């Protein structure tokens, strides 16, 4: 049954509400049926024609019929309805003109389960990403960043770091040398730096304490490439020298850094080691991040920590007083610590990579996993 304007006899507010609701409902329903411009013209005329349109009828059947006391309220309601009718009629036209009819929309439907058009992003290299993360932990502790050359002299790579000529500790470094250096004195001979520690010396040469730096960079060793060895890898070196820096400070700093990198539940363990440029020297282990330090996983021994519950991660120590001698610091006045960590080792742990060569062959299938 199409809507017809009822003749009102009851002019109470409740009765008016009900009549208005009924009218608006009809307005919306009929609007939804409009599918063409022709439909719309009929619709418009039915509601808005001067002669016998719904609005005109309202004037006659509601407003004129209303008793004196109700006239004002009925008048307001009729005005509101007039606005709404005009708005809806206009909106209906806009809708059919935009073509948004249900049929057209149906025809335009897409299979939204097809893949989107992606603009490929490049992937960060896991080693550089890890290196940046390490640097950022220390930057937040107030460390500056320093860099140094990859081809170093014997002086910076060894001598000033308290590796005397002929010291057996030099053998552990598997150094790659540049040809044609024999005519130079030993300290000037060029080699590929075997660690980032030379940057410690370069930093202390150019600034006086307090010093607080991290030095990320590439290092080289004469190691034939295989799953666990690479002739190139990366380290982050750290150095803090000031008055009153103690072994406890070294421990606290690295404990904080390891928690920042591997999560706050990680524990650290320090035990004695040997580096010519630190004394006392220490190696640092963290509780195994795979088995939570228990040494067992999935009912068997944890392979990542060889069931020990600990993973060795970095070397550190208090700066050896001999090193201060090379850079004109007074070891009686200042003290400090240094540390160095292998970035690949940490990246391997974090991402479970099983072959270090994957870092250096540019295989997109590998790199994309870090995008």
């Amino acid at each position, binding site marked *: 049954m199409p809507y017809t304007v009822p003749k009102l006899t009851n002019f109470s507010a409740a009765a008016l509400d009900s009549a208005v609701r009924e009218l608006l409902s009809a307005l919306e329903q009929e609007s939804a049926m409009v599918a063409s411009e022709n439909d719309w013209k009929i619709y418009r005329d039915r509601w808005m024609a001067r002669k016998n349109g719904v609005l005109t009828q309202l004037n006659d059947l509601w407003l004129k019929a209303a008793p004196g006391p109700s006239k004002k309220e009925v008048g307001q309601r009729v005005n509101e309805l007039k606005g709404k009718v005009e708005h809806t009629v206009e909106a209906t036209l806009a809708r059919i003109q935009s073509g948004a009819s249900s049929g057209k929309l149906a025809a335009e439907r897409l299979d939204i389960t097809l*893949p989107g*058009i992606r603009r*490929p*992003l*490049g*992937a*960060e*290299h896991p080693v*550089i990403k890890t290196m940046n993360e390490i640097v950022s932990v220390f930057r937040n*502790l*107030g460390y*500056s*960043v320093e860099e140094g050359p*990859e*081809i170093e002299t014997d002086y910076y790579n060894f001598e000033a770091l308290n590796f005397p000529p*002929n010291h*057996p*500790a030099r053998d*552990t470094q598997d150094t*790659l*040398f*540049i*040809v*044609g250096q024999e005519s*130079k004195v030993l300290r000037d001979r*060029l080699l590929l730096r075997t660690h980032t520690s030379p940057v410690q010396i370069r930093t202390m040469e150019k600034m006086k304490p*307090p010093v607080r730096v991290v030095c990320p960079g*590439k290092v*080289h060793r*004469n*190691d*034939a490439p295989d799953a666990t060895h690479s*002739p190139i890898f990366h380290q982050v070196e750290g150095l803090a020298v*000031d008055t*009153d820096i*103690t*072994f*406890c*400070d070294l*421990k*606290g*700093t690295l*404990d*904080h850094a390891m928690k920042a990198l591997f999560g706050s539940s990680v524990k650290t363990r*320090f*035990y*004695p*080691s*040997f580096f010519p440029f630190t004394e*006392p*020297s220490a190696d640092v282990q963290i509780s195994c991040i795979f088995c939570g330090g228990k040494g067992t996983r999935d009912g068997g021994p944890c392979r990542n920590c060889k069931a020990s519950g600990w993973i060795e991660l970095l070397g550190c120590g208090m700066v*050896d007083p001999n090193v201060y001698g090379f850079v004109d610091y007074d070891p009686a006045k200042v*003290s400090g610590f240094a540390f160095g960590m292998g970035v690949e080792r940490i990246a391997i742990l974090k991402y479970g990579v099983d072959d270090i060569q994957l*870092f*250096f*062959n*540019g295989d*997109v*299938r590998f790199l994309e996993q870090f*995008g």
Partner: protein
Amino acid sequence: MKLSPAWLRDFVDLPIDYRRLADELTLAGVAVEGISGEGESTAYEMEITTNRPDAMNHYGVAREASALYDLPLKAIEPKLPAAQGKSDVTIDIQEPELCPRFTAREIRNATIKPSPSNIASRLQLLDQRPISNAVDATNYVLWESGKPTHVFDLDLLEGRRLVIRKAREGETLKTLDGVERKLTPEDLVVADAVKAVGLAGVMGGFDTMITEKTRNILIESAWWDPVTVRHMSKRHGLHTDASHRFERGADFESTVLSTNRVAELILTSGGGTLVGDVIDVVARKLDLAPVELDLREVYRILGEKLSTLEINRILTRLGFTLTAGSEDRYLVQIPSWRLDVEREIDIIEEIARLHGYDKFANTLPAYSGEVVEVADAQKDARLRSSLLALGYSETISLTFISKDDAKRFSTAAELDLENPISDEASVMRTSMVPGMLNMLAYNLNRGTDNVRLFEAGKVFEASGEKSVELKRIAMGATGNVNAEVVHGLAPGAAARPLSFFDLKGDVEQLLAPFAHWTFYFDSQTADYYHPGRSARAVMDGAMVAQFGQIHPEVAAARKLKQDVFVAEIYLDRLYQHDLEAVRYEPLPRFPAVERDFSFIFDDAVAFDKIRQAVDDLEIEELRSFAPVEIFRGDKVGAGKYSILMRAKLQSRERTLRDDEVAQWSAQITKALETLGGVQRA
């Protein structure tokens, strides 16, 4: 290096099991890397740091354990029968600097035979092959107390004397491993009256060794100069258990004890008689200077106050002797086996490691000083994030290239490696391109056809006696753009082969943030690029990048099966330019007018010329002048191209009038015609 924990029990009564002992020794600095076997045949795999030759044996580790658990350490006391008669063997040290002490002892009428099982099994547990009772005795002592010794067949020594001298020019020595070695005066030898019979501290001679026929034995235990032993070991490529210990510093005071211990073991198993006293020639005393220890310094370095009692206990158990001085000072006498301890800080380390590193508190140092970034950090970060956003994945390749590649891809003087990993990696890279091409090839060979990579790194050049390191970025791209797009998915959605202009666009994006006065592209690129499809970017007169398709011949030589594109960005030059400071410019308030120009030009007229000609008109209201469409083909004619260009005109002050726009259009048309362009109808 293996050690047996059961053997440690000869010297200290350990109250704990072998696993816990391993863990606690490690935490005290005597690292047990692994454990194998059970019970008496348990073996520790040790990782002793190079500064601790004193701990490379059972007695040394037992001493550590005695300090760790505060237990007494039992002395090694050889029980020898009374010696008979006098030995007429003489020792002549001609090099007192290199051999300050030489100790020897003579045994007569011993029987050479296999070692008793207790000796043999202990050696076997350490992967040492038992040879004979006399040889095994020296080996046993090496693993027991760390002192290398040697035994000669006394009857094969000529003149009954040993001379410690430099080798003679041309002298040879067949060492125990059967190798005939040419000696030089740099070598230090033990010789008899005639010939060299041992390479000092490294290996004994073959011709004077103990055999089944040996009856009379001379035992040697000496102290050799570490540097001399190291040089000889390196020169002859002969790294032995003896050289390993001598070059790290042996115990000067242990020569007599070790000689007697070897004698005891030989006499016990092989019988025979001890002849004469021990012959102990000290050419020069090796005194270790006492060290002053100030407890305040211990606190300053370690950050915690340890009790005097504990410090005393630790050092005493390790063999140090303390004499109290004034206030908090002590004078510490260093034991003869600790050549690594020379300074106060070395003693502080001894205290710290036996106190236990983990017992020290974790604190953070107070902060002072300022934070400084590396100079180009901002520029590095900007380029890196742009490259990642442009779809290039970050890579790291080897720093070394082959000699051929160094010549092919650079004119710079290269730095060769003295001891390269391989011929393919024998030169420090002078160019990033070979590494990038290798990575592209690696992917293509594995079925990855769409690749975009970049690497930021350094190239290395020789400059006189020095090396120069220059920062570069290499980009590599091959395959399709939008490779993953489903064809027909959306209007225009399709994969298409990467072109020169894709790469050029990326390079333009990367260079755009750098402030400059002049900037242009030309085609003067290196010869490994396709001559018609490569360009160089010149900023304020300096090349900051070159890029393009790799020359087909170069690609073919590297077996690259599809076109590859490479870009090199010269950061050392680019970073001469600051990043452009961003300044807001008010948005235009008046409408822009666009005018199209459709022309045919000769191929010789590059677009750069056209743009220059239009620029020269100096029309202030010209906001942009850009090509919209280019067409070549039969309709246009050979050697010509058709180009549609669009000018955008806009004023900051007012709406442009039609007659003004018409006038500028006419100017532009005229300029284009002057260049030889023909306007299309």
